[in-house]
């Protein structure tokens, strides 16, 4: 065999190996989904959604967990989004010049990589103990807000960065002030990108478990929360609770709750993908 043939064989061999690797990843995903669907799909019905928790697996539901999750999400959105977007705007539009902004940038890159459980410790100590908010919904959403803040800032920056310099210059050239340019040109143009980031942040918040355990959310809460100071449980915590129970019925419950959680996660990510695609198309300047 000459060299060129050997090279071609290697090339082809790698190709098949790589296809196998790619499909292995997808296969695991498929098996995971199949495993969960087969364990939990039959358990899902209206009762499962509307029932309160119970010691009997067959009559337990996720009502309180769902409501808890919605409470947490809404508060997190209210707290984290304005701050995150504002910070993103500052860093991308104002802060380039000074060294401090550079420092903030490193800092955010770091925060984005801090393990979520560390945010849990921060939340436990800062909100739960020092501010005395206990293991309430408010503590939970403040903690998750800190957690998703770097995510929102980074995606806001990416979205703003994607707005071409040329249309900014056009606005400045017409005599617009900085804020006018940002408000009336940059933000509308990057709206899709920012929104995508926000939805991914929500999806992240929905899936978090560890920081909430650390702030003390692992309790039996058999009622729907009605105010931010209530104790709460969320879907992931409920799943964790059920996963650790040995009886088969609770494994089924956990799988069923996971299906609901995944539906939510996939929906969020799907919306983000669609938004991103549509937005990419619309604003190809």
């Amino acid at each position, binding site marked *: 065999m000459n060299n060129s043939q050997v090279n071609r064989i290697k090339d082809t061999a790698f190709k098949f190996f790589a296809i196998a690797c790619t499909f292995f990843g997808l296969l695991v995903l498929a098996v995971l989904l199949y495993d969960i669907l087969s364990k939990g799909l039959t358990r899902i019905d209206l009762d499962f959604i509307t029932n309160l928790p119970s010691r009997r697996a067959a009559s337990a539901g996720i009502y309180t967990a769902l409501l808890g999750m919605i409470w947490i999400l809404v508060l997190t959105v209210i707290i984290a989004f304005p701050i995150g977007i504002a910070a993103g705007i500052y860093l991308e539009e104002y802060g*380039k*010049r000074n060294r401090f902004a550079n420092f903030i940038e490193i800092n955010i890159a770091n925060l984005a990589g801090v393990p979520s459980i560390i945010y849990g410790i921060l939340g436990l100590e800062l909100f739960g103990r020092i501010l005395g908010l206990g293991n309430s919904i408010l503590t939970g959403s403040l903690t998750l807000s800190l957690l998703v803040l770097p995510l929102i800032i980074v995606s806001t920056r990416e979205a703003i960065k994607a707005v*071409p310099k*040329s*249309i*900014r*210059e*056009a*606005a*400045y*050239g*017409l*005599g*617009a*002030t900085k804020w*006018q340019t940002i408000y*009336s*040109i940059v933000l*509308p*143009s990057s709206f899709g990108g920012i929104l995508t980031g926000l939805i991914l942040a929500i999806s992240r918040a929905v899936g978090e478990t560890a920081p909430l355990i650390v702030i003390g959310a692992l309790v039996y809460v058999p009622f729907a929360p009605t105010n931010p100071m209530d104790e709460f449980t969320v879907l992931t915590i409920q799943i964790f609770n059920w996963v650790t129970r040995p009886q088969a019925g609770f494994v089924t419950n956990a799988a069923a709750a996971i299906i609901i959680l995944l539906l939510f996660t996939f929906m969020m990510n799907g919306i983000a993908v669609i938004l991103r695609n549509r937005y990419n198309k*619309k*604003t190809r*300047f």
Partner: protein
Amino acid sequence: MQKLEARNVNLFYGEKQALKDISLGIDPNTVTAFIGPSGCGKSTFLRCFNRMNDLIDNVRITGDILIDGRNIYKSKINVDEHRKKIGMVFQKPNPFPKTIYENVAFGLRIKGVKDKSVLDETVERSLRQAALWDEVKDDLKKSALSLSGGQQQRLCIARTMAVEPSVILMDEPASALDPLSTAKIEELIYELKSKYTIVIVTHNMQQAARVSDKTAFFYLGELIEYNTTTTIFTNPKKEQTHNYITGRFG
């Protein structure tokens, strides 16, 4: 009095000097062309006139730039207000991702104009001046991005004129356009000359020859030669100019 004047302008991007001691004056209601090879500083110099370089980090400028005799870098000038008097058109058409109408009305809106009739009137007048009115008058609510490249560029010119500047700076306004659109823009420049002072950067020597009254040749950040367009193209004083316009490089 000269409309625009530069006195010993030096400009640095960080360490790197992009403009070297440039002085030149531009008369009102003329078209001046800046030519020179890529990277010689034409755009940089053009952008000194509306302080657009302010937007870039690490830029340092020395020397004076005067508009109507007023030093725009020294006095406590309001940059935003100043830019309204100096229109700018860029190489790539850069309409806002808004409707055609809103593009043209933008300059007024940021001034705080809300009166619908004033806006309508200005939009129409500007589009007419930019020779675009007939093509878009029925589609004012359509997105500006749906226009062709040439139309977009004329829209940008209209948008600029809506704020009634006295100077228009154009940075290779036709280089991304097809021959037909280019011809239209060149025609437009010729017409606008009566009302505005126009400075145009171009790579296309024939374009410079066709539209401008005076031409400045830049090379490596220096102003090599500045003279009437006829002189530059038929009888340049410097060898570099000669080499450039005969296509020895660039």
